[in-house]
């Protein structure tokens, strides 16, 4: 990649984008992550579990630094930390009465996770390529193997979500009613937190731990501004996620700035655009 330059010839630009294997890998990984984050995020926004999602996102920090310290692959560390945190947060039950304890438990998990990450980082400063990559993401280092593992995780998560889609919708909208109808609400709660952990770990490999939210919250929140229909909302959320990631990766390719910045900016811009459009219309 020597001086990529943006030209008015869009076809030429596209050919440029696809001419490098690392860029193809990044686009593939980004596409997988966009779909996964948009679908899981749609439920997260509906369930108002954004704080739990944010905490899981932060967990990739101790996950990656801890894995580096232990000599394990970073990706494995991501997944272990996110799944572990999901299990830890499960100690508090969702529901109308326990909201306060839930928030406190999640906050505690987050603080402990950050502290552990900071410790791991200072113990092996040299092993990692610096914390920026970890926190803000990169698309330069995505390997073919990483793309495949992302695909595996995403497929498993999306299939799991598809199978449980309706009971999870019922349990998210009205847990008491779901319980009364024999839906295993507490198992679904746990399952969803684990899925959220997987989605967050996968997403943070592209956007970095701090910017996972750009893909997890913005596309579904934007979709929910437009439609209340569950399935249409999920589909719109996926479309928005894809557009944001593709534009973000392309912009990062043609500029010296990090991809996480562009993805976040485009996600925010889209949300504001739709919110203003709604406001003007009403």
């Amino acid at each position, binding site marked *: 990649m020597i001086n990529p330059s943006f030209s008015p010839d869009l076809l030429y630009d596209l050919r440029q984008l696809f001419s490098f294997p690392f860029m193809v890998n990044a686009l593939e990984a980004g596409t997988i992550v966009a779909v996964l984050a948009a679908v899981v995020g749609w439920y997260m926004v*509906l369930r*108002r579990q954004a704080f739990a999602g944010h905490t899981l996102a932060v967990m990739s920090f101790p996950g990656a630094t801890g894995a580096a310290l232990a000599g394990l692959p970073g990706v494995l560390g991501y997944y272990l930390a996110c799944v572990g945190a999901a299990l830890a947060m499960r100690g508090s039950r969702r529901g*109308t009465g326990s909201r306060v304890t839930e928030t406190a438990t999640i906050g505690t998990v987050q603080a402990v996770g950050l502290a552990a990450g900071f410790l791991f980082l200072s113990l092996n400063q040299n092993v990692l390529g610096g914390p920026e990559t970890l926190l803000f993401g990169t698309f330069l280092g995505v390997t073919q193997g990483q793309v495949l593992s992302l695909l595996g995780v995403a497929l498993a998560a999306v299939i799991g979500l*598809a*199978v*449980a*889609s*309706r*009971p999870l*919708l*019922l349990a998210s*909208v*009205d847990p*008491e*009613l*779901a*319980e*009364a*109808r*024999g*839906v295993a609400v507490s198992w679904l709660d746990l399952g969803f937190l684990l899925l959220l952990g997987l989605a967050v770990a996968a997403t943070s490999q592209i956007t970095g731990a701090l910017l996972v939210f750009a893909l997890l919250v913005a596309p579904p929140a934007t979709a*929910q501004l437009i439609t*209340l*229909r*569950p*399935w249409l909302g999920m589909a719109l959320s996926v479309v928005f996620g894809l557009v944001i990631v593709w534009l973000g990766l392309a912009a990062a390719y043609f500029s010296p700035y990090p991809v996480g910045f562009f993805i976040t900016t485009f996600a925010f811009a889209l949300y504001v655009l739709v919110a203003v459009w709604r406001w003007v219309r009403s």
Partner: protein
Amino acid sequence: MASLAAPEDRPGAPSGHRPLNALSLQDASVRLGGRPILTAVNLEVSQGEFIAVLGPNGAGKSTLMRAILGLVPLAAGSVRVLGRPPVQARPLIGYLPQRHGFDRAVRIRGLDLVRLGLDGTRWGVPLAITPSARTRRRAERQRIADMIALVGAESYAHRPVGELSGGEQQRLLIAQALVRRPRILILDEPLDGLDLPNQTSVAALLRRIASSEEVSVLLVAHDVNPLLEYLDRVIYLASGRALTGPVQAVITAPTLSELYGAQIEVLKTGDGRLVVVGAPEAPHHHGTRHPEP
């Protein structure tokens, strides 16, 4: 004293061609943690009856409902729902648990809530590919639209449930329960938190549904007054025992005094409202929600 069931309703007697009772409790007793909650409750409910379950807090109203749903085991006696044990009859019972309205932020349409009544417990993706699946999908849509029309929710079924009033939410929840064609509808304090006009109109709606859909409706309530002109019978629970009969027969000073084992007075106001005085705990107090045992 209010009579329980007519003798020929008893199982054991040849039922012949008579329609099966929706619900039948024989000396049903429930103990929780060693404490008797319900003692020898007898009850026969026929199809299409509208019955209020009344009584002070902690009298076992919710426990009785949970026993009918098969969620708590009986210490003695039996419960039969359409002639079957409760667990087998679960699909035939629509149940609305006691609740606090939807959070304002719930971004889902009333219509979707009613649809969840139909398919909220089904696994897999709702794809309709084969012709027979399409036909079924059309029938489901029609059923959902019919139930929304039945409860009079057409004008707001497309709005987010979180933004609807308590009465509107309650109507949609009733539609949600009816969409599965239950034979029995059990509602735990559905009038709680509604204003008086809404309490009366939901009661009128349930009366209409009980008759037109031939659903037996059991409604747990604090206050019988909004229900007075719509009910067929009441079940009055106090200290674990139950009395069943028409309102005029059950809510009287002598019967309630005997049930409570204390001096009770029943006053009738000019507009026909009933006020129970002297009960260890006033049955119409509105206020704190209580986890009943």
